[in-house]
C-alpha cells in the first residue's frame, strides 16, 4: 500500500493526526497478537491428548544464543567392544605415541629366543552423529501397549519386583487384563504390551485400578502408550586416540607372561612406543568386553 497524499494532508496538522491514529490502530493490533501468543503459550498446544507422567524440569542457564550444539541432552554414553582370544588392548598415555605405533601395521616383538609377529590396528568405535526420533501421536497409536502411571514416589520395591507385581496384576483376566508380552520401566510409569489389542483398549477404558504393591493397595491409572520410532540414525566410526588393538598374537605364552612381554615392547621409545596406561591381553580361547565411556563422565 502506498501513501498518496490526499486532500486531508494538505491541511497542516492533520497528517500528524492521521499518523497518530494509525499508530494507535497498529498498537492495538500488536497487543491483540501478543495476547493471543501469550494465551497459546500458557496452555501449550502441543500438550499430548493423553495423560503423561510429569517430569520435573529446571532452568540451568542454557539459552538459545549460546547453544550451538544439540538442544537435547545426551547422557550415559557407553560402548562395549569385544576383545577376542589372541588379542590385546593397549592404552597409551599420549595419543601421539599411539599414532606412531599404528604407523606400522606389523610389529615384531623381540623375546629371548624368538620374535612374535603381531598386527596392530586402531580401535574404531561406532558413534551416533545424528538422530531423528518421532512419536506416533499423529499416525497410529500403538494400540497393544498401555502406560500404567500414578506410582507413589517412595516405593520400597526394586525395579524387577515392581515390574513383576504390575505384570501379575494386569496379566489376570479377572482384573480386566490379559497376556502380557512386553514390559518396560519408564520414568514415572510402566509400559505394558499385551498380546491382544482388545485387552489394552479395555484397560484404557476402565482407566483406574487399585493395585497391590508391596503389601499395600495403590490407585494406578492406565492410559494408551505413545510409542516412538527412529526415523534416522547416522553412525560414524571414530578411532579412540590413545588406543591400539593388537591382533593375531601367537599362542606361545601364558597370560601374565604375555602381558609383560607386550608391555615391555610397547613401552620402548626406541620402537616408537611410550608410557602405557593400561594393557589387557586376552589369551586364546578366552574373550572379554572393553567398556568405553565419554571423557567427561
Amino acid at each position, binding site marked *: 500500500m502506498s*501513501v498518496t497524499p490526499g486532500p486531508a494532508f494538505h491541511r497542516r496538522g492533520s497528517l500528524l493526526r492521521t499518523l497518530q491514529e494509525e499508530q494507535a490502530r497498529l498498537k492495538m493490533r500488536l497487543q491483540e497478537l501478543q495476547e493471543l501468543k501469550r494465551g497459546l503459550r500458557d496452555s501449550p498446544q502441543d500438550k499430548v491428548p493423553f495423560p503423561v507422567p510429569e517430569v520435573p524440569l*529446571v532452568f540451568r542457564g542454557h539459552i538459545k544464543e549460546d547453544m550451538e*550444539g544439540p538442544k537435547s541432552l*545426551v547422557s*550415559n554414553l557407553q560402548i562395549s567392544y569385544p576383545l577376542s582370544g589372541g588379542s590385546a588392548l593397549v592404552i597409551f598415555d599420549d595419543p601421539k605415541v599411539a599414532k606412531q605405533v599404528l604407523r606400522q601395521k606389523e610389529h615384531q616383538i623381540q623375546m629371548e629366543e624368538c620374535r612374535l609377529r603381531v598386527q596392530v590396528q586402531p580401535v574404531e568405535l561406532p558413534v551416533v552423529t545424528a538422530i531423528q526420533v518421532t512419536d506416533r501421536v*499423529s499416525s497410529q497409536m500403538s494400540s497393544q501397549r498401555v502406560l500404567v502411571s500414578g506410582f507413589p514416589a517412595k516405593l520400597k520395591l526394586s525395579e524387577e519386583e515392581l515390574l513383576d507385581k504390575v505384570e501379575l496384576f494386569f496379566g489376570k483376566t479377572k482384573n480386566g487384563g490379559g497376556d502380557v508380552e512386553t514390559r518396560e520401566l519408564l520414568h514415572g510409569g510402566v509400559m505394558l504390551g499385551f498380546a491382544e489389542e482388545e485387552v489394552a483398549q479395555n484397560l484404557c477404558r476402565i482407566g483406574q485400578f487399585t493395585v497391590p504393591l508391596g503389601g499395600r493397595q495403590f490407585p494406578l491409572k492406565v492410559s494408551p502408550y505413545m510409542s516412538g520410532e*527412529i526415523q534416522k540414525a547416522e553412525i560414524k566410526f571414530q578411532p579412540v586416540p590413545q588406543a591400539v588393538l593388537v591382533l593375531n598374537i601367537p599362542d606361545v605364552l601364558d597370560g601374565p607372561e604375555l602381558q609383560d612381554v607386550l608391555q615391555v615392547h610397547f613401552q620402548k621409545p626406541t620402537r616408537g612406543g611410550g608410557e602405557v596406561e593400561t594393557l589387557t591381553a586376552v589369551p586364546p580361547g578366552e574373550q572379554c568386553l572393553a567398556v568405553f565411556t565419554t571423557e567427561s563422565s
Partner: protein
Amino acid sequence: MAFGGEEIDEVMKEYLKDEEFTKDEQKQKLIEKILEENIYLTMEIQKLETELQEPTGSSQIKEDIPETKMKFTSLENPEDDSRFSNISCSFQVSSRVPYELQKGEALITFEDEEVAQNVIRMEKHHVNIMDIGVEVMAKPVPLNSGVRFQVSVEVSKMKVNVTEIPGELPENQMRDKIELSFSKSRNGGGEVECVEYDKQAGSAVITFVETGVADRILKKKDYPLYINQDCHRVVVSPYIETHLKKFQVFSGISKRTVLLTGLEDLYMMDEEIVGDSVNIHFQRPKNGGGEVDMFKCCLNEICVAYFQE
C-alpha cells in the same frame, strides 16, 4: 502493507510544498518519528502473524550429536555369549524443553523447591530497583511436553551387509553364488552360516560362523562375487541394528524455577543492574526468597530458555 523508503519521501515532498509547514521544524521531526514507529510496529505485527500461523507438530527430536571423546573405562566378563557378537553402543536422550522469555520476564531457579513454591504462593512481590518500586508477579512456568528415550546401536561382528548385487540369476542360484564367494578364505571370506538375499533390492545379509571374518571383509569397501566366469565387485558395509528403548513422552513441570513478570517498563535501564536487583531481592528470606541457583532476565529482546532434568 509495507512502507517503503520512497513512499515516505513522497509524503515528505508533498509536505515541503506547504511553506507554512516547513517553518514548523519540530512538527516535522515529530512526524518523522511517528512514521518510523509505525513502520516498526507494522514489521512486528507481520512477524507475529506469520509465527501464529505455524502449526504445532508432534514431538520430534532431530539432532546432530557433536563428537565426544571416548576413553577406556573397564573390562567386563559377561556370561552371555551373544554380547560378543556385536560392538554395542547405548545412550540416553532427553529433550530440553524450550520456554520463550518475553521482554520484561525473568526466570529464577531456587535451590529449594519449598522456597520456589512459596514465592509463587505469594504472587505479588514489591521489588526496589534503583529506588523505583516495581510490582513483580511470580507464577509457575508453563512448559510443553518433551521426550526421553534410550538408543542402542549394535554393530555386528558376525554379519555383513552386501549391496549392488546384480540381478541376472534366479534367486536361489544367486544365493548359492553369494555363499560360495564369501566362503573363500583367499579373498578374506570364511564359513557362512546363512545368507538372506533380496533379489529386488540387490542386497544381502551374510552371517558367518566365526567372528573376525566380518572385520576382515570390511577392511575393504568391496568384495569379489564370482558369477560363472565373471567377477563382480559388490559393496560391503557393516550390519548395524538400532533400537529405541524406554521411549516416553512427558509433561514438563517446573518445581524450582519460577516465572517473574512485570519488568516491561524497565527496558530503558541496564539489564544487568535490573537483573542483579531482582536476584538479590529474591535471595533474602525476609522477602520470601532463598538460595538462588540460576537467574535470567529479559528486558530488550526475546530469548529462549531451555529446561532440563
